[in-house]
């Protein structure tokens, strides 16, 4: 179940942003994506999650190996914290096996379980969004700036959860600007930035549209 990404090019709104990205990710390992604002981290992660097709290149695993946590959390503010998690557990068919208690406990949300999700602060919401990962039961986590709004304690809880996931043979791809204290490979995306000149065959009219 090694993930192999090969010569991947991705586009945002039709404009290529990254070209020729390649990496391998073995089970039990984490990968940090680094790169300045606007380099294309979010776009790359959406491609991996199967939400948009790549421009070129190959991802060795099916999208349903990935659990994606985006900038937006997908939280329903009128449902309680527990109802939100239960929904995701049901949808992924993991209600019986994992149980949401583990996920709640991991992010110290058990006390807030009955609270309507709309009445959480920014960081609490984020924790709920991350707890969702645990109930998907998927091996590879794709995390887009997961620690936004988290306080220092919450960041360590998050790192613990990721470490436990890796120890269980899972893996994770994380885009983040801050230090997480994880033992992970780092890939810098700046060199893959798609520039005008790096377009492969500029003469092809069809290609020139892109």
């Amino acid at each position: 179940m090694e993930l192999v990404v090969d010569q991947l090019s991705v586009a945002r709104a039709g404009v290529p942003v990254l070209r020729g990205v390649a990496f391998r990710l073995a089970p039990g390992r984490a990968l940090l994506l680094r790169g300045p604002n606007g380099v294309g981290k979010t776009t790359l992660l959406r491609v991996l999650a199967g939400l948009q097709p790549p421009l070129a290149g190959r991802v060795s695993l099916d999208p349903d190996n990935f659990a994606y946590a985006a900038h937006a959390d997908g939280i329903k503010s009128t449902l309680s914290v527990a109802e939100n998690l239960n929904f995701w557990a049901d949808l992924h068919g993991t209600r019986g096996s994992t149980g949401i208690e583990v996920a709640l406990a991991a992010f110290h949300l058990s006390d807030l379980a009955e609270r309507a999700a709309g009445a959480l602060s920014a960081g609490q919401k984020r924790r709920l969004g991350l707890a969702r990962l645990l109930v998907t039961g998927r091996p590879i986590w794709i995390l887009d700036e997961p620690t936004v709004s988290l306080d220092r304690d919450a960041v360590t809880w998050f790192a613990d959860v990721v470490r436990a996931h890796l120890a269980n043979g899972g893996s994770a791809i994380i885009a983040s600007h801050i230090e997480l204290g994880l033992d992970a490979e780092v890939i810098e995306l700046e060199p893959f930035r798609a520039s005008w000149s790096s377009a492969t065959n500029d003469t092809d009219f069809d290609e020139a549209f892109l």
Partner: protein
Amino acid sequence: MRALLLRDLRLAMRAGGGFGLGLAFFLIVVVLVPFGVGPQTELLARIAPGILWIGALLACLLSLDRILALDWEDGSLDLIATAPVPLEAVVSVKALAHWLTTGLPLVLAAPVLGLLLNLPAPGYGWLTLSLLLGTPALSVIGTFGAALTVGLKRGGLLLSLLVLPLYVPVLIFGAEVARRGAEAMALTTPLAMLAGITCGTIALLPFASAAVLRMNLR
């Protein structure tokens, strides 16, 4: 899929979820008509079946943007799309939830509102039947429209614009059934057509909706 249906129904019931508001809108449209066209009973009775159908259609239309846009805005739709459920099933369930929370109440309320417009007595049964047959098609077509406009900020009005032409056949046959019913005329042809449209859209349109949704998500 049951989880999704239950969640949508639960969300609709919660504060601000919009359950009953479609109904209220229907009520209000029907109430406004006499203010506009004047209070003459005999005139109102003549236009009643048509107005009731148009009112139901508009009430349905207004709630369409809740079907997908809310889930889009808070990111749930992306996450649902990556979950292990086929998108065709997702849009069908969404349409079903919309019908249960909007269409069905309209069907039940229509006879009461018929009173307000002096709908002739034989019309009530046919009006209800035609709405019962027609509103599921409205929900399914509406879900298609919602899928088309999901990425757009406040696609609400654009959505109406796209969906209304698609509603025209349903409206024509539905209102025809109701009108002929009210005037005690033969109505098998429009009834059969209405039923046919509904079955056809339910069977086929979810595939189009899912395809369109997939495009909009990327």
